[in-house]
């Protein structure tokens, strides 16, 4: 099982902060395609991945990264700290 976590408007569009999923996706991009196929709210949230960032096990990563060995995948918009 893989934990998928959502923040900010990604969380709001999908309607939940985190979920455990069973996936065979090899890369982040594969997982995104899988999620988009699920339901319109996922499709809407991931419509423009250039507006999204991804972290694998709390390290910033990118959409082409492999998922092997990853426990937690987080999707969120560009950060606005400071």
């Amino acid at each position, binding site marked *: 099982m893989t934990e998928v*976590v959502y*923040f*900010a*408007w990604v969380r709001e569009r999908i309607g939940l902060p985190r979920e455990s999923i069973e996936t065979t996706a090899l890369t982040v991009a594969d997982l995104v395609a899988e999620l988009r196929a699920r339901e319109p709210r996922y499709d809407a949230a991931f419509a423009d991945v250039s507006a999204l960032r991804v*972290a694998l096990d*709390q390290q*910033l990563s990118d959409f082409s990264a492999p998922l092997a060995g990853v426990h937690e995948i*987080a999707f*969120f*918009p*560009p*950060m*606005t*700290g*400071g």
Partner: protein
Amino acid sequence: MRISVQTARFDPAAELAQFGGPHAGAIVTFTGIVRDDTGTMQALELEHYPGMTEAAMTRIAEEASARWSLSDVLVIHRVGRLAVGEPIMMVATAARHRQAAFAAAEFMMDYLKSRAPFWKKQIGPEGAHWIAAKSTDEEALNRW
């Protein structure tokens, strides 16, 4: 070194009073305050990614510390609901010379803006909206 992610309000003056260490010749502080540009903002809400936030702040502070030989470094960032006029965050750097203290503080600010997992939502009378990242914040990283 002090790194803190907190919901509680903090007092920048009290933080400065305790900051520095014995060999500092130059201390720089930056304090960010909730600003109301529209005149109608009711609050600012800050979401973050627990765990990753602390790790990112620590990494940024350690990198600044090593690169500019800081004798002390401080990063405080609030999360949760903040009112206009309240401090959001603060960084402080202590070094032997002014250039190092300034550069380290600016470096930390640039990285906190775009590489620490915080998201700001502005709450007004007609609802809430997420503040978009600025391309200039991403570009600011190129100078380091």
